[in-house]
């Protein structure tokens, strides 16, 4: 009998060896590695899913006994190895998304969600395919700002679900996961679970830009995202006051320490233009965002004025950039979108880029 025929018989015999935990035979499970059959000498490895497998010895004995009983086999050598299969990261994440932009702030109340929403809209209005992920689990406000009624997302195959669509934007939000007005009260591990779902289970389709509205601060959600999602860059939103700038600085440092490129700093509520004159009234001081950007040598993307239409747009569910494209705020958002897109292009064109996400299976 040829070696190859013998190998087939050996494999057929091994198909009767079951893994008691997984309830499947070890051949179908792909445990048999590096099989070598030469002149009746059979050598192979059994690769278990954990080195701590409680039935390791039992499986080894069963393999040896059964293979030795095959006609034509003179000698059997079985080596037990293990390949721990990582449970969480195995699925590819956001494969069809070209750019992932995190919008963050150190402090709450600086208008981060408003900036994220209008930035996403401004990018979409240039003709790009844009998604918006409301990752502010505790205070999701994007559905309100876009006028999307709260309803459960449409489910698809394999635990996937579809984003809501409004004004050409694809939107996911924690608000859709609870009843209207009900708080989501969660501890850390649950938060991580929701973010993981947003990253893995949403049928985004192809996107040019995915804008992620982060919760304020430097906590669980930020860390999960920076560890799991291949972020292209981050935008930090601040207001001109010192108290906001102090925390914005922490946001910048957080992205620095996890190597997410800073696309730049946006100063929101920078100035007020009243209807009587064209003078810019700097109600909350001026120049803070610019100074912060200079301090960290990151781009200052733009300043967004404080105008009533922004608030009204947010409350009515029609972002200012759609409701009143000629408003100074809308113009500022268009400039912001252009700056963000430009910074992303610069990052993409950099030479000697580090390896994007990778995985290496160890051999031998």
């Amino acid at each position: 009998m040829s070696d190859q025929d013998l190998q087939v018989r050996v494999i057929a015999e091994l198909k009767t060896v079951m893994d008691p935990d997984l309830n499947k035979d070890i051949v179908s499970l792909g445990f048999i590695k590096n099989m070598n059959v030469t002149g009746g000498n059979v050598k192979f490895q059994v690769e278990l899913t954990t080195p701590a497998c409680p039935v390791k010895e039992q499986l080894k004995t069963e393999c040896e006994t059964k293979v030795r009983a095959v006609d034509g086999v003179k000698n059997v050598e079985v080596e037990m190895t293990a390949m721990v299969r990582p449970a969480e990261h195995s699925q590819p994440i956001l494969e069809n998304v070209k750019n992932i932009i995190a919008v963050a702030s150190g402090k709450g109340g600086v208008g981060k969600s408003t900036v994220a929403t209008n930035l996403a809209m401004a990018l979409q209005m240039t003709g790009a395919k844009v998604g918006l992920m409301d990752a502010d689990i505790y205070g999701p406000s994007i559905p309100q700002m876009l006028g999307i009624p709260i309803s459960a997302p449409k489910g698809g195959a394999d635990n996937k679900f579809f984003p809501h669509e409004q004004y050409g934007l694809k939107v996911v939000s924690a608000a859709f996961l609870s009843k209207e007005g009900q708080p989501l009260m969660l501890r850390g591990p649950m938060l991580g679970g929701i973010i993981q779902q947003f990253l893995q289970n949403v049928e985004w389709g192809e996107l040019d830009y995915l804008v992620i509205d982060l919760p304020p601060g430097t906590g669980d959600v930020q860390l999960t995202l920076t560890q799991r999602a291949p972020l292209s860059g981050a935008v930090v939103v601040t207001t001109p006051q010192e108290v906001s700038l102090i925390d914005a600085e922490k946001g910048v440092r957080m992205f620095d320490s996890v190597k997410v490129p800073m696309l730049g700093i946006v100063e929101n509520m920078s100035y007020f233009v009243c209807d009587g004159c064209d003078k810019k009234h700097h109600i909350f001081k001026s120049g803070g965002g610019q100074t912060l950007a200079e301090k960290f040598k990151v781009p200052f993307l733009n300043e967004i004025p404080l105008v009533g239409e922004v608030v009204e747009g947010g409350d009515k569910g029609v972002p200012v950039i759609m409701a009143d494209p000629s408003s100074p705020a809308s113009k500022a958002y268009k400039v912001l979108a252009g700056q963000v897109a430009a910074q992303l292009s610069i990052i993409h064109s950099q030479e000697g880029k580090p390896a994007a996400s990778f995985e290496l299976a160890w051999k031998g």
Partner: protein
Amino acid sequence: MTEESSTSTTDPAPKGIRQISPTALGITWTDGHESIYGVRHLRENCPCASCIDEWTGIKRLDPATIPENIKPVNLKSVGLYALQFFWNDGHDTGFYSHKLMRKLCQCIGCR
């Protein structure tokens, strides 16, 4: 991290990662440096909270408890700043930042 200047994206990052031998890992960095690591050396320097005390920074891992045949089974990137090793002793909680990987380099120049 250097203060008052953002050097993050210009800090060297791995460009190419490969297995050199059954027990050696090689990394080519964006600044051109070529690192080499013995896998045992990497396991012994795991930065996770069960190997290094989180508050005191004192090493809690006794290298003698690491199996003789220690090897990674798999390794992968964590975000844009670190590597994670899945070891054949079942340990996988360490995130090795790029900075730490540079520190652990065992090439002739770094040793």
